[in-house]
């Protein structure tokens, strides 16, 4: 394709991207190098904001929790989503329709409303806690780090699994039927079919799903803002950014955290981007 033709097609979207993303991001970097006085003046501050953040233990705790959160919830969502998708494939049409409708509820409900409803189940007077206590398994979800982190992750998995299920269920429909049947004729059991036929077919899809989920999990905010407000080591980078910029009213520092956060997500995505690049190159 000639450069002129390429620019004719891609030019408008590149312009929009530059206007809506690159310019604000450049401005964010510029403002992060300033300090905002209480009179509203922006004064040059150099790397002072970055120094403040990088020496703040809360930042490192937020980074650690965000990484743990990604490492636990993403595999959990993909695994659960895959198991559910396999189950869906074996169901009759009516049961499948009903199941998908019910399963989509947590995904459809507005995140804040869904999180609030979820939170009420686990509070001191909540139904889940009531049942657990009846079983002698009373859990105080806000009492320590392990419990609070578990609660936040449980909510996130509950909320996000339907998306993984839908994507993987759609992917399962594309696995060639004749290859599976050939494997059955050759005597392959379920696990062998899964590992030798189905999963290789879904590999690209799973990588795409993981990519989307990393970006999503890295930005987790609603679950934390509603459930714990960052208590017990559940402050994510996004919540930390919000707290510093808007609650602590240190706006300039908030810009610096935003820059560091973008840098972090780029680092996390590098393996996936390299993989996509190699795949595209191999296709040519």
């Amino acid at each position, binding site marked *: 394709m000639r450069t002129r033709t390429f620019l004719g097609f891609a030019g408008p979207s590149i312009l929009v991207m530059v206007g809506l993303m690159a310019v604000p991001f450049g401005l964010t970097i510029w403002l992060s190098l300033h300090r905002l006085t*209480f*009179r*509203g003046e922006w004064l040059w501050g150099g790397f002072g904001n970055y120094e403040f953040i990088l020496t703040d233990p809360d930042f490192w705790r937020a980074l650690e929790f965000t990484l743990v959160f990604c490492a636990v919830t993403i595999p959990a969502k993909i695994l659960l989503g895959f198991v559910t998708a396999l189950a869906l494939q074996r169901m009759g049409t009516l049961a499948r329709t009903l199941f998908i409708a019910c399963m989509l509820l947590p995904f459809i409900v507005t995140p804040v409303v869904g999180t609030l409803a979820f939170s009420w189940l686990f509070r001191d*007077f909540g139904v889940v806690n009531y049942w657990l206590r009846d079983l002698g398994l009373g859990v*105080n979800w806000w009492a320590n780090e392990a419990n609070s982190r578990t609660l936040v992750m449980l909510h996130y998995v509950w909320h996000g699994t339907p998306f993984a299920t839908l994507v993987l269920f759609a992917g399962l429909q594309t696995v060639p039927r004749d290859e599976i049947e050939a494997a059955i004729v050759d005597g392959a059991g379920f696990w062998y079919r899964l590992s030798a036929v189905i999963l290789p077919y879904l590999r690209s899809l799973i990588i795409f799903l993981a990519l989307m989920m990393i970006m999503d999990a890295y930005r987790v905010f609603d679950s934390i803002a509603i459930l714990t407000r960052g*208590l*017990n080591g559940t402050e994510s980078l996004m919540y930390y950014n919000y707290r510093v910029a808007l609650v*602590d009213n240190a706006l300039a*520092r908030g810009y610096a955290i935003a820059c560091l956060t973008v840098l972090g997500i780029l680092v996390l995505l590098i393996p996936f981007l390299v993989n996509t690049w190699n795949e595209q190159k191999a296709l040519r």
Partner: protein
Amino acid sequence: MHPAPTRRQLLGTAAGLAGATIAGPAFAQASCDLPQPARAVEISTISNAFPVLQFLMEQMRACSRGNIRVETRLTADNLPQTRTALQAGGNVPFQIIHASNTSFVEFVNRGHLQPITDLVAKHRDAYQLNDIPAGLWQQTAHEGQAYVLPFQSNTHVLFYRRDLLEKHGIAVPATVEQMIAAAATLKAREPAIEHPLAGVYGRGWNVTTEFANIYQSLGGDWFDARGTPTFNDARGQQAIELMKAMLPYMSPNALAFSTDDVMVAFQQGRSAMGIYWASRAANMDAPDVSRVPGAFSFAPAPAAAPGGLPSAAIWWDGFCIPRQINVDRELVFSVMAEGISAATMRRGANLAFYSRTSVVTDPALVAQNRYWPAITATIAAGTKTFPARPFFSLGHTAVGASIIDALQGRATPKEALDRAAMQFTREARSQGFL
């Protein structure tokens, strides 16, 4: 068997219900006849969402007539949104903002508010503004100018189950130590009360306010004359130790408790005592939401040390007008003033300790509102407000970011407060306060 209703009967019933629905709220609202502007005008408000504000905002909405439309936004935590709106530059999208003594100091020092001295003087008689005590006008003024129409004073008082204390021969606690001892007795002898104490100890603003109450009761000052933090002194550490001593008698989830969680704990009979917002006292007697209506009594908050001030601070809340708005400021003022009329306050008398003397000294209303004497006694005891320093909120949030570590034992009180002091100093310098 009853005959089936005719279509006319059904239509009549529907019309009646519709009429009642439309007319119903009008009975509960103030009459608000303001001079009509020539063009359509929308006045927007932003406020917190506690019960008295829900009521007052309802009254302001009653001013929506003809060309005037009043839109209200109530949020659980309005401060970040209000800040963002005020700092964004240009015309502020809210013409009426709710401020308390702490947020007011921040807003006015940043130049976000406009003085309303002239409007107060002009409408003093029409809206009976002399009914608001001179002392409150002074507290809400800045450099001699009025900026606020105050609608309530608020403070923390002791909520306690009178029936349980009498049953076990426990005197009403006058100090925090006595309150902890009373909690220990109740925990041992009253199995139904799983967590005798409840407090708004949720992370951030809430737990820091509890710290501030105890710290100020111990005689602590947050800063010295130059703005250097002093909240990390021995009194600050003692305040945290007292808070830690209360935690074993609270729910294990106490550090996530909001104001509403504490209210529910009291109403459901799960907690028997606590230092809590006086403005929530009215909800204790409502039989539709409380399992123990009438069981709670109220007293000034216990002192952190014998002979000290109550563990509380005096608060006021009011309405202000941002510096830059695109609506006639006199009209905005009138809507605010209608919202805090004496008639309005009398209608919602159970919801707050209002700013009008004629309301809070009315013997009939005092008799109805059992918690008012506790507030009056707290004010009379000389309880202080939070420091009116423009950087106070930075200190408050810095403590809020660290104090949980001390309460959970991850840091000593001194370590946590020293860290808060360091963070405050850095941020206050960065923002040009120090």
